[in-house]
Each structure stands twice: as structure tokens, then as C-alpha cells.
């Protein structure tokens, strides 16, 4: 996904997602891998995930306290993954699709222009699975097209993209990233998102057992033609 180029500045990756934990649960291994290789990673979370159902188990958060808690958890997850910078768009959870689209695209385009990332990760605008995911994916895709900077990849869930034709893609459209050596960081980030992950007993099993729940690869859909360097 990220190739060595004859440039002196570090490679940069911009990930634009909807909720705290999207970055960990979906592509935490990839972020940890590139961070370990020296790629500078900026994560944008459109919301603080403050309208979710999971409030800890047993619940120790409520609707008014959860936003601050999830921000703290996300910062800790970023530390485990090696994400350098975190930004929020301060949109209320579950309302991303109702934001003024020009405003939203403009925010992201501005970030891309400022940061000049080599790679941009976001949700696919129809395969995102949640209205907030699809909305932030659609806006980021449009911002990428306008800014004309870097390469765009869509994140995907689990190993669905082993069968890309089911989603209208071919194997050539898919990139598999081997994250085997970075699963420990991914697990630590899962545990940092405690109020969301503690309902899942496997996360809290012994490390070696918990790690068996992760796949070796994370899959991405190409959102732009590969650039010839």
C-alpha cells in the first residue's frame, strides 16, 4: 500500500473514520504496521461515538459522560497503534449523514491539502455498513477527488474481500496487508476501547488465546488507480 519513494520526508497516512474504535476494530493491524515502519499517521474521527449502545459491562457510563470517556479511550488506542495525531470533526454520533455535505467535504479537503498524505483510508460509501460510515466515506472520497493528492483505499470488514466479486470488485482491486507482527498492538488497542470491547469475552482472555481471533491479513479496496512513481 505504501511504497518506498525517493523522497526525504516521512510517508504520511490520513485515516478518516466515523467513530472511536473504527480504526482499531477494522484496520488496527495496518495502522500499527505502518506506524512501526515510520509512517506518520493522522486519524480523524468524525464523532466521539457518544450515541452507542455499549456503556461498559456492567454499565459505568451514561449518555452524558460517554463522549469524554471514548475520547480518552481513543487517545490510548492511538498510543498503542502509534497514531501520531488525532482530530475530531465534533459531529454528533449518528448525524454525520445530515451534515452539510459541502462543509464536510471542505473540512476533509482542507486537511488533505494541509497534510499532503501519501495514502488516505476511509470507508466505502456504500459498503460502510453504518450510515455514519457511509457518509464520512462519501465525503472523504469527494475530498480526495478534489484535492488530487495521494492514493485512496477503502477499509473493509474481516475477510469479506477474499470474495471481492460478491461486492462488484475483482482480486486486482484488493490489497491485503499482512499484519501478523502487529496483532499484539491491535489487541492492546482493542482493550483500550474498554467500554466497547469488554462485552466481548474473547478480548479479555489470555493474550495468546485472544490473538487467535484476529486474521493475519487486513483487506483494502483500491479507491484510486495506482500511481506510477
Amino acid at each position, binding site marked *: 500500500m505504501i511504497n518506498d519513494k525517493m523522497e526525504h520526508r516521512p510517508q504520511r497516512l490520513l485515516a478518516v473514520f466515523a467513530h472511536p474504535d473504527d480504526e482499531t476494530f477494522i484496520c488496527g493491524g495496518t495502522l500499527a504496521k505502518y506506524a512501526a515502519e515510520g509512517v506518520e499517521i493522522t486519524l480523524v474521527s468524525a464523532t466521539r461515538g457518544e*450515541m*452507542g*449502545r*455499549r*456503556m*461498559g*459491562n*456492567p*454499565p*459505568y*457510563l*451514561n*449518555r*452524558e*459522560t460517554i463522549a*469524554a*470517556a471514548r475520547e*480518552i*479511550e481513543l487517545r*490510548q488506542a492511538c498510543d498503542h497503534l502509534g497514531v501520531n495525531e488525532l482530530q475530531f470533526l465534533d459531529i*454528533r454520533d*449518528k448525524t454525520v449523514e445530515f451534515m452539510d455535505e459541502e462543509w464536510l467535504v471542505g473540512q476533509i479537503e482542507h486537511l488533505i491539502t494541509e497534510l499532503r498524505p501519501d495514502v488516505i483510508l476511509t470507508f466505502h460509501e456504500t459498503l460502510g455498513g453504518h450510515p455514519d460510515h457511509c457518509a464520512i466515506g462519501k465525503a472523504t472520497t469527494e475530498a480526495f477527488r478534489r484535492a488530487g493528492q495521494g492514493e485512496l483505499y477503502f477499509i473493509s470488514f474481516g475477510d469479506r474481500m477474499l470474495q471481492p466479486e460478491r461486492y462488484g470488485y475483482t482480486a486486482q482491486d484488493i490489497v491485503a496487508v499482512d499484519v501478523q507482527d502487529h496483532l499484539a498492538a491491535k489487541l*492492546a488497542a482493542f*482493550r*483500550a476501547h*474498554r467500554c466497547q470491547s*469488554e*462485552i466481548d469475552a474473547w478480548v*479479555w482472555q489470555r493474550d495468546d488465546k485472544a490473538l487467535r481471533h484476529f486474521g493475519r491479513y487486513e483487506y483494502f479496496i483500491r479507491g484510486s488507480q495506482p500511481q506510477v512513481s
Partner: protein
Amino acid sequence: MIPCACVSPISVYSVYNIGIDVLNDFQNEDEKDCIEEMKPIEKKQVEKMLSQFVGAKVYVHSEATSYMFARNFRIDLTEAFIAGDGPYRVALRYDGHGWLRIEGLTHAELDDQERLLLEGFDDQGRMDVALHLGKEPFPE
């Protein structure tokens, strides 16, 4: 933030985010009490808390978590009821012609801003419903 009388929000979080391997075993009972803000509903107590909002202009946050939420609609609350033996039902009469009724409530808290937070959780701690009353608007 995280209302908690005994420690600041940040320290609450740092207390229970260290020691990944022992996260399910809280360090001691004091900390556990401090972390668990929401308490199982005691009907009489909630009835009393509700009565403090009757006759006032009230801002309401209400949600059926997987389906809808409404934030900061303002009502003149004229009557408030709690019914059931747990989970509980609460009904509000407002503006002389309105009703809001919600069921499945299990937990309550009067937070440090004197907002009454009523919520309903399933057996795994996932929220199903919420009804919050405040005399000032909730953050948008």
C-alpha cells in the same frame, strides 16, 4: 465530563485503564462505587427526583437507542409518573396536551449538574432507552 465526587474525570479513567490484564477485577470497592455512576432505580427516590422537575421548564433528551433520539426539546412539565416493579415505566405530561412515555428503564442518577438521567440497560450493559431531564440545555 465524568461526574464523580471523589476523583477527577481523568484520574477515574487512568485508574481503570491501567493493568489491562486485571481490568475486570476492579482494584477495590471504593473505586468501583465511584466508577459506577448509574444506580439501579429505586422507585420512591426517582419519584421524588421527578417531582423536582414538575412545574418547571425542562429540557429533555430521550432515546430508544437503536431507533431514535430527541435532544433538547423543551417542555413545561405538568406531571410525572413512574410505574412498574423493574424495569420501570416513566410518563411525562407536558404543555397541557402532551405525553412522553418510555419503558425499560433500569438505572438512575442525579448528576452533578442536577440533571436526572434515567436509562435502561440489557443484561450485558448495552443501553436500550434513555430519558434525561435538565433545567438547562444539554450539550448539542
